């Protein structure tokens, strides 16, 4: 077999990719799914553990009602039916799984048959969104971190028993780009429900992709499941690579084997992990230590009321806020970015505080969203004040961006941050003095400007900036030039 083309340039030809995603997200509960241990990322290993999440002999699980609520929020946001559900045991041996079975939902998931609408208006079906417990985390020591040649392995059970919801899409996705849109939109929804923080980099949102290709109108092709996709970028690359691999295989007369494949970030390719024949027989059976969960209508209604506005609604609200300015394609992307990062509240506050909607959108989408974690906890009043300083010319655009990054870094009063940077706006009389000197030094150019040659405005602005070492505000200079021309 020849090596597939590099990711992104895979020859798809007449082949149609068929993609389904399985997304695991950790729920932001205070405690774990079946015990009272803290659900926290990054704590000292094996400090958030007890007999239950360590699976000690004799211990029993007790379901965390808050986790059920969060799962129902996700189901509600994904337009799922919320159903009476049952936990099963999924049996397989793995050192970081304390009981050597995982408590998971099987054929009776809490959420089923929903859908998710992407920003481009397409819809992806959601087969199910079920609850399960997370495993611990294994670190292989020595031998480059791979299990095969490691000297020994260390297991941290802090994550064991952390509540997860697994969202399984229908195979409705047709490209890597659409898969990215789906994952990003889903992340926005998860964050909006308050059920999960959707942090792929911390593993609180993990994506597996099922990929197959076929000739349009044919039956579904044989699929491969790709694991270890830790970012939206690897999701796109891995899917593109896998489509290319399968197409080349089929076009050269081969067949696709049903496999689980691993995305190798370093080599930027997928590699076979195990075949269908080697797949585990999980021997699912109903978990006898737990009872059925049947949320009644009242509970479902309470949960539905607690679910916030979804990204689609929030994008619509921003479009409305922008009025005529919100319709271009570039604006649509900016709006998507703002909502995806949960910054629409901040942006809306700025607009309500008197900042022009276009400026608020541009800054929030382009600069503020670079630090979404910090931006989400930013004081809206400070943010508004900063954007107003830019709007009224107290700060230049460049200066405003610098102050914004200071504000995101440390917080504080934007006016004071600007002063610390030496961005005190040039007093009006000193700008006057500078302008007097410039006009005296360049009488010819001034004459042409007064005579109507607008291009020279830029010439004088540049000189003013140079003379003031950038302290002059562009808008103030422009205003001065206009008023002097009369």
């Amino acid at each position, binding site marked *: 077999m020849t090596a597939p083309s590099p990711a992104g340039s895979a020859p798809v030809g007449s082949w149609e990719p068929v993609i389904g995603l399985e997304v695991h997200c950790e729920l932001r509960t205070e405690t774990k799914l079946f015990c009272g241990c803290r659900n926290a990322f990054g704590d000292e290993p094996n400090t958030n553990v007890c007999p239950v999440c360590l699976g000690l*002999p*004799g211990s*029993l699980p007790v379901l965390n009602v808050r986790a059920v609520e969060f799962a129902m929020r996700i189901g509600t946001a994904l337009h799922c039916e919320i159903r009476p559900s049952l936990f099963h045991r999924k049996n397989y041996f793995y050192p970081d799984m304390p009981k050597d079975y995982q408590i998971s939902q099987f054929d009776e998931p809490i959420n089923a048959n929903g859908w998710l609408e992407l920003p481009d208006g397409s819809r992806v079906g959601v087969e199910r969104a079920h609850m399960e417990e997370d495993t611990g985390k294994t670190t292989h020591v020595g031998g480059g971190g791979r299990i095969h040649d490691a000297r020994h392995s260390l297991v941290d059970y802090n994550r064991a028993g952390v509540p997860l919801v697994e969202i399984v899409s229908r195979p409705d996705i047709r490209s890597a780009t659409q898969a990215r849109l789906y994952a990003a939109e889903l992340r926005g929804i998860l964050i909006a429900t308050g059920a999960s923080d959707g942090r792929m980099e911390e593993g609180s949102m993990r994506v597996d992709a099922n990929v197959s290709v076929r000739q349009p109108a044919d039956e579904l092709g044989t699929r491969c499941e790709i694991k270890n996709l830790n970012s939206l970028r690897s999701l796109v690359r891995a899917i593109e690579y896998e489509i290319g691999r399968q197409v080349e295989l089929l076009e050269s007369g081969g067949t696709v084997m049903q496999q689980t494949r691993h995305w190798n970030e370093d080599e930027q390719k997928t590699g076979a992990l195990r075949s269908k024949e080697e797949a585990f027989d999980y*021997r*699912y059976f109903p978990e006898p230590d737990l009872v059925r969960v049947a949320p009644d209508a009242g509970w479902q209604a309470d949960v539905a009321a607690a679910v916030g506005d979804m990204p689609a609604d929030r994008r619509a609200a921003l479009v409305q806020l922008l009025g005529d300015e919100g319709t271009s394609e570039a604006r649509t992307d900016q709006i998507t970015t703002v909502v995806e990062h949960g910054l629409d509240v901040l942006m809306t506050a700025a607009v309500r505080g008197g900042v022009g909607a276009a400026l608020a959108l541009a800054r929030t989408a382009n600069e503020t969203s670079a630090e979404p974690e910090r931006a989400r906890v930013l004081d809206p009043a400070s943010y508004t004040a900063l954007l107003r300083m830019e709007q009224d010319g107290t700060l230049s655009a460049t200066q405003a961006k610098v102050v914004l990054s200071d504000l995101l870094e440390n917080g504080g009063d934007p006016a004071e941050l600007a002063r610390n940077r030496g961005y005190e706006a040039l007093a009006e009389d000193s700008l006057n003095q500078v302008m007097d000197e410039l006009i005296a030094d360049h009488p010819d150019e001034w004459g042409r400007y007064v005579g109507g040659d607008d291009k020279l405005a830029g010439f004088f602005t540049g000189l003013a900036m140079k003379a003031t070492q950038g302290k002059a505000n562009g808008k103030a200079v422009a205003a001065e030039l206009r008023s002097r021309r009369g």
Partner: protein
Amino acid sequence: MTTALELAEQVRNGSVSAAEVIDRHLAAIDESDGAVHAFLTVLHDDARRAASAIDDRIAARDDPGPLAGVPVAVKDNLCTRGVPTTCSSRILDGWCPPYDATVVERLRGAGAVVIGKTNLDEFAMGSSTENSAFGPTRNPYDADRVPGGSSGGSAAAVGAGLVPLALGSDTGGSIRQPAALCGVVGMKPTYGTVSRYGLIAFASSLDQVGPFSATVADAALLFDVIAGHDPLDSTSLDRPTPRSLENVGDGVTGLRVGLPVELVDGVAPEVAAQVRRAAEVLSAAGATVTECSIPELKYGLPAYYILAPAEASSNLSRYDGVRYGLRVDGEDVEAMMRATRAKGFGAEVKRRIMLGTYALSAGYYDAYYGQAQKVRTLIINAFTEAYRNADVLLGATTPTTAFALGAKVDDPMAMYLSDVCTVPSNLSGHPAISVPFGADGDGLPIGVQVLAPALCEPLIFQVATVLEAAAPVMSAPVLAAATWSGR
């Protein structure tokens, strides 16, 4: 033997100290348990400390509770904080639970003193206590015979008079069968009335902790202490704590007793004869006894031997050498797990893991596990139907009296048949008790079983009390301890 009720009363009124009670029983165990081998661990120091704390409370005019100073033996599949809990398996070698089972906590809360941990068939899988990694327990009535199982250590400890009370667990008869074989009272409560938190699981949907005692009233006393809702067990029923002791003497006048032929006809003639005599006793005491038939009961055993191993195969997965207990090194983690489990588990446990793994496997699930679940539903429905015409059911506890050590170890099917009369109550979740009722020609104890609908434990104790009062007097067991004094 002084009953638990009497002992607690004496300790509470100061006529005897808890320390004396405990010392006396420790001495009896030290002297007699070598022959019986009921205990795997005897807690000399812990028990003496606990007794002295109880005496301090008595001196301070505080009431330590209804089991003040009473020594209780605990089956070694119940977790005891800081004390080895082995399940009679090498695989748990060196493991000490960091917590007490809820039932153990309740014992301590009622003033009882945990005096030791008793022998069992490995992971409660067996009917003779011969499947213990630490050697078999002997039947107090004949040292060459089995005490039954899997709670053979607890049954023999009470039978020999080493302790007045013991806890066991019953998954398919593991309390009632050894109780019958050792001449003591043993009760399996309604599924969900006693917490399973800290009971090392064999088959989670069938396991239930219950009491052993020499008298019915003592069984009721212990049951009342251990029963009640536990938020740590999701299958625990949220109901008020039962007070069955108050009603043990209420008699059986007007009670409808069903006698299912399936629990009488298939058993040894001497056992069947005692069941019929027990029926006459109840009849004479004012109950109406009617023969009936519950044909579905015969499917109980096959269904049980699918469901219990299936759950066990999953419950026993965690013994992989990674976190606790035995570890046998291997080239990689998988080899380590294989070697650990190969060495750590005994033959019967391996047999059941394989049976259960098979029954749950892809392609076989519906034919085995699925079908067995349907049978389970049929049995529940059949009991419900039977209870339209009867308040309680009466039958044999076991098909035979105690068999010889080694007689069935090489014949698993014959061993499994020991549970034929007890398994249906585990599948239905209903309560049942075994009460000593006479002996066979060799002087070996016979037990009769009283079964009732869910949550009818008080009724069971009432019926058992009537039977107990009319039961033929037994001679002392050959392995009787100095603390044994008959009833």
